[in-house]
């Protein structure tokens, strides 16, 4: 179980030039191993991001994600998950539903306390209010894990990129970047 602090940056180009929002978010993660190879997780996060330009409204991002990891070896595996995301401002709200799948590597540094972390995957399911499915959608993450008996830390940089076509036919590029610092504890397994 862990909590995280994230720097969130959203960049959007809906055909009217670059809009950039950034802010800080907080979240909670719960993961549980099932057997020796399978891990499921539940993540929730909320963030408030402010526009770089003074003309835009602040945005609030709330999301919940159910994820899973299948380890093929101690150093690599596959991941997948579904994400419900809501982006709102004082004028309205937009709902996102994403389904993602990809591969991850976790090679350990000598001593097994540090691990490099890398993910790259696609988002084949991307359903966003008012937008057609994204023609290009992928995500990736790179970072470092540090674990001791009973607790763990993570610093990771994540990227999601989408290319939608809006209802009026305009291209809409969206990109969400996060720098996440996560700290967690490991609870002993019962039984």
């Amino acid at each position, binding site marked *: 179980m862990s909590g995280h602090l994230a*720097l969130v*940056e959203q*960049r*959007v*180009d809906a055909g009217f030039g*670059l809009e950039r929002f950034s802010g800080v978010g907080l979240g909670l993660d719960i993961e549980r191993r099932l057997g020796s190879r399978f891990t499921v997780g539940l993540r929730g996060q909320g963030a408030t991001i402010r526009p770089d330009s003074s003309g835009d409204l602040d945005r609030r991002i709330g999301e919940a994600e159910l994820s899973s990891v299948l380890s093929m070896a101690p150093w690599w595996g596959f991941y997948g998950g579904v994400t419900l995301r809501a982006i709102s401002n004082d004028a309205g709200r937009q709902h996102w539903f994403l389904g993602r799948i990809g591969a991850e590597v976790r*090679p350990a*540094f*000598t*001593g097994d306390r*540090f691990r*490099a*972390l*890398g993910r790259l995957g696609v988002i084949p399911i991307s359903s966003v209010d008012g937008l057609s499915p994204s023609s290009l959608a*992928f995500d*990736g993450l*790179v*970072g*470092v894990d540090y674990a001791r008996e009973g607790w763990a830390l993570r*610093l*990771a*940089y994540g*990227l999601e*990129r989408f290319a939608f076509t809006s209802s009026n036919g305009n291209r809409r*590029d969206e*990109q969400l*970047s*996060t*720098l996440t610092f996560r700290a967690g504890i490991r609870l002993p397994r019962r039984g």
Partner: protein
Amino acid sequence: MRWIVATALVLCSMPVSARAQDSTAVVLQQARDLYERIELERSLPLYRSVLSPGWRFEVTQAQRVDASLYLGAALLLLGERDSALAHFRAALERDPFADLDPSRFTPAQLEAFQAARQAVFAIAVRPILATRLDPRAGRMTFTIATTHAASVRCEIRVADQATAFPAFVGEIRGGLREIEWDGVLPSGQLAPSGRYAFVLLARSLVAARGGTQVTDSTAVYFDIKQEYPALEDTLADIAATDLLPEQYRASAATGDLLKGLGIAAGALLFANVASSQDLGGANGMAAAVGAVGVTVGVTSFAARRGGDRPENIAANERRRAERSAANAEIRRRNADRLAQTVLLISPAAGRSN
């Protein structure tokens, strides 16, 4: 007619030796009865017939010695002292343990027998009986006999080695003598399993006074087997492959450096290549993660390169110490078991004179 012959052959082939011994025993018993009834003249032919080379039946050593003793005793009572002495000597030569019971024979017979003892020099060791010897509490006994006073040396020899040590050295007056042994070698070590010989070397003191030295030797063989509870094997040495590596491999340090650089490269790749060219990348975030990755990689490279692995060294030391402690405990238990060793002694084939 044929079946009569066959029946006769079968009857003739019945255990001959048993009947022969029975015949000798019967004749000796008849002779003994006559002797006891003082019908000496009638007993003499029976004894002589048994000792005769022409006696048709088997005669054991004990029966021959018994016949010689009673023949000598009877002849002495009949006044034939020289013949009596000759038969007493024959009995002693066959069995130096032979003796007359003072309650059954006259003083004259006993005196003559003693005279015969002085005239012949013979020695013997009584056959060893199977026994179980606890060296902490018991002793085994060798019984030796000389017909008269002698200087003797009793040795115990390990049969297949040159090891020998004296069990008794001294002079004895003649007759029986018991020599005890506790099953321990002169080194203090318990006699190991194997074959041993008890050797008796003797020199007649009577004959020496007469100017000639008469010596004799004999030996009996016996086996010793140590008996103790089964011992435990100590734990085998820990193989090098079972121990954790105590130093980092050079490639491990290089690998750590490459992983750190890989994190930085991945972060830069996401920020500059995977990100939209139009939207731009989050270079600050990528730089932060890349810097941490490089720091971890470089630090690990510097720390691990050719360095010791204290946690593995400690773990290996712990395993070695556990093994040593376990072996010490096994050795202590084995020592306790060996301290309970008893010797199983059994007669072995072989006898020399």
